[in-house]
């Protein structure tokens, strides 16, 4: 061992490490030792180079030989990449250690503990080596039965067979390098970097499903960048192997030891929280091209700076001066940007902006309003990291405010006869976006409460209300789940294409969603519902309808042709609240 405490200087935890030879098992043990801890027992799976038949006779010298050969062979094969990278690319390993240092204490010393003269006996009171070529191997199952009841730290990959879960008294803990419930599956550290801009780590209790067990702890780290040394950039294969040799194992070990095991009074009595199984995306192994992009993001080469596309923030910030003082250049700039963008909806958003900006010359009194609204879009692009429905401009139109959105609010209100529907009634709008629809129906309604999870859109709605002198709309920053806690009831609830969302911010299932709609209504209250376009709803909208009909008696069910291409073909429903929801 290098620079580590002797075994008896550490505190034994009543845990068993189910060790699949490799960097992960070693990282757990090394990190535990750094925290002054150790596991009581290690069950080390050893692939049997002689086919397993010799080990059927306990005490057989040939079986013992097979086991010894297996230990040696898998030490070489499972740790091949870390040893090779440390030997051939020590600068890369040093760069990784520097990059990880803000997240993990002393990565270089952990690597030394993991790979220099490593012996399992130095990390546990008892080491059981069992010949097993898979988790379903009867020899492994027999050992696991013999150690039960026990809490196990799982250190391998792949699917655990039901036979393991069937062993009485066995609990398996696992750590996954994705933030649950949002990132599940394979290659998740790299997927996290691409999709969330930083690694996430989650410790959970294993179940037969994929990454769906109750969660013990999560950690979404600060952004991680490895500054590569000058010189030739290592190839993607080497970088990919280095992620799973040096980065992934240490992040997992850090969370497990720092947040789960070290603070626990009794590691056999840990508190776990169920996951939202409807949330998140299950990712699979990356295509080499996608993997290359993730590695470019993680490993920054000093001599290779990829050209960046202009971000939304850059573009919107560039527009700020056009809203301080009227500019004859602005419409030309908008037109050029609309042509230049590669995204059709983005182009439409910019053209809408161009049109509205041009109309300000006829309505100079709106200039200040548009400046305030634009400032919200800039702030949103900087701070709000989920899908931008308005494509850098507005999703909803407002004739009253001189805003052209991707959806035509006036046509929508007219097509559905919304003002007549809500006249004199209290209304709740779910997911109100910029609130321009709430403002459009406010003159007819007795009162409107509009909530939206995006604070910048909520601010835009309030700016619009102030400009129009609307006083009977209350805008709130809230999710539906949080709003539920207000325990307030309404005559009508507006659910306009919010039962699923693109942005990943809605985590409830349809049943739960419509139950909430039902719960926020007075007896006799109504659901006023608009679907997504049919292609987005999919082929079983009938199932959604069936759920709606359990909670509401449907009085109107129509499809209207109005407005923009995003408005058309949606189903519009008005349903009366059932007193007793059906089953």
């Amino acid at each position, binding site marked *: 061992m290098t620079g580590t405490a002797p075994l008896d200087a550490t505190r034994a935890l009543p845990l068993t490490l189910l060790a699949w030879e490799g960097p992960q098992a070693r990282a757990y043990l090394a990190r535990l030792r750094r925290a002054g801890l150790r596991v009581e027992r290690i069950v080390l799976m050893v692939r049997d180079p002689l086919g397993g038949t010799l080990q059927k006779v306990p005490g057989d010298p040939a079986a013992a030989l097979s086991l010894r050969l297996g230990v040696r062979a898998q030490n070489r094969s499972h740790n091949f990449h870390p040893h090779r990278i440390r030997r051939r690319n020590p600068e890369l390993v040093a760069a990784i250690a520097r990059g990880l240092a803000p997240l993990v204490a002393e990565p270089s010393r952990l690597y030394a503990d993991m790979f220099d003269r490593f012996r399992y006996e130095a990390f546990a009171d008892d080491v059981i080596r069992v010949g097993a070529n898979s988790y379903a191997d009867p020899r492994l199952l027999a050992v696991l039965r013999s150690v039960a009841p026990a809490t196990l730290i799982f250190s391998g990959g792949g699917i655990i067979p039901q036979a393991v879960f069937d062993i009485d008294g066995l609990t398996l803990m696992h750590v996954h390098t994705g933030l649950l419930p949002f990132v599940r599956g394979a290659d998740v550290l790299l997927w996290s970097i691409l999709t969330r801009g930083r690694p996430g780590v989650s410790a959970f209790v294993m179940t037969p499903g994929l990454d769906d067990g109750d969660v013990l702890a999560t950690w979404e780290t600060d952004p991680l960048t490895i500054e590569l040394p000058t010189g030739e950039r290592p190839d993607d294969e080497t970088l990919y192997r280095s992620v799973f040799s040096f980065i992934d194992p240490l992040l997992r070990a850090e969370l497990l030891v720092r947040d789960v095991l070290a603070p626990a009074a009794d590691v056999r009595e840990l508190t776990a929280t169920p996951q939202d199984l409807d949330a998140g995306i299950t990712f699979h192994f990356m295509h080499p091209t996608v993997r290359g992009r993730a590695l470019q993001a993680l490993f920054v080469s000093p001599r290779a700076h990829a050209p960046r596309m202009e971000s939304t923030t850059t573009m919107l910030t560039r527009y700020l001066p056009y809203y301080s003082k009227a500019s004859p250049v602005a419409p030309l700039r908008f037109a050029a940007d609309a042509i230049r963008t590669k995204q059709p909806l983005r182009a439409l*958003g910019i053209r809408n902006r161009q049109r509205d900006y041009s109309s300000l010359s006829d309505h100079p009194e709106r200039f200040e309003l548009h400046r305030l609204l634009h400032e919200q879009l800039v702030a949103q692009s900087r701070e709000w990291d989920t899908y931008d429905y308005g494509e850098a401009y507005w999703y909803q139109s407002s004739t009253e405010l001189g805003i052209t959105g991707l959806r035509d609010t006036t046509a929508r209100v007219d097509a559905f006869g919304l003002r007549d529907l809500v006249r004199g009634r209290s209304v709740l709008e779910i997911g109100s976006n910029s609130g321009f629809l709430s403002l459009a129906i406010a003159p007819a309604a007795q009162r409107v409460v509009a909530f939206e999870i995006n604070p910048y859109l909520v601010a835009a709605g309030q700016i619009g209300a102030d400009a129009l002198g609307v006083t009977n709309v209350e805008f709130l920053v809230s999710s539906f789940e949080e709003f539920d806690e207000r325990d307030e009831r309404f005559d009508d609830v507006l659910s306009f294409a919010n039962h699923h969302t693109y942005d990943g911010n809605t985590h409830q299932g349809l049943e739960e969603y419509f139950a909430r709609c039902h719960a926020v209504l007075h007896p006799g209250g109504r659901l006023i519902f608009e679907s997504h376009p049919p292609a987005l709803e999919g082929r079983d909208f009938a199932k959604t309808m069936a759920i709606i009909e359990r909670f509401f008696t449907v009085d109107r069910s129509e499809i209207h042709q109005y407005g923009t291409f995003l408005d058309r073909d949606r189903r519009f429903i008005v349903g009366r609240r059932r007193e007793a929801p059906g089953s």
Partner: protein
Amino acid sequence: MTVDAEQAFRELIAVQPTKPLAAGSATEMGPEGTVDVGVLVGTWLAAGPNVFVGSARADLDALCRQIDVRRKVSTTYGAGWKRVDPETAVPAAVAAGLVAVLLANAGSLQGSTGVRDGGWGLKCANSALKALDLFEDAPFTPELRAWAVEILDAETASVR
């Protein structure tokens, strides 16, 4: 190069098989919940480029799994996307159509804003690239591959 997704869909519709791939199937849902992938892809193409939500997303997600994990896309699946033996790979034109649907999901509602959908777009682009590797003789492969890379450029711009 900027891909016209609408045009790409029209061209792919023109090369789709005219008959259902599964015997006796006229819609994407056949007897006992079986799925005819050719009809399903044809329906999606006919609806134009979209980002799916709800059950359409669940169906496309199931096909991503077939591509990414099982490395094959069959003409027919049983209820719950269960394998139906003997498995027959979808015709190359259907695979190309599926790639276009994946790329539309990866790109058509995304701006140059990077990743704003929890990673659904990137997941679809990943599966599209893998499908193109699996079906090397699919029509419009160079165009579809270029489209995928263009989307990847836009989707990963914010993290590069």
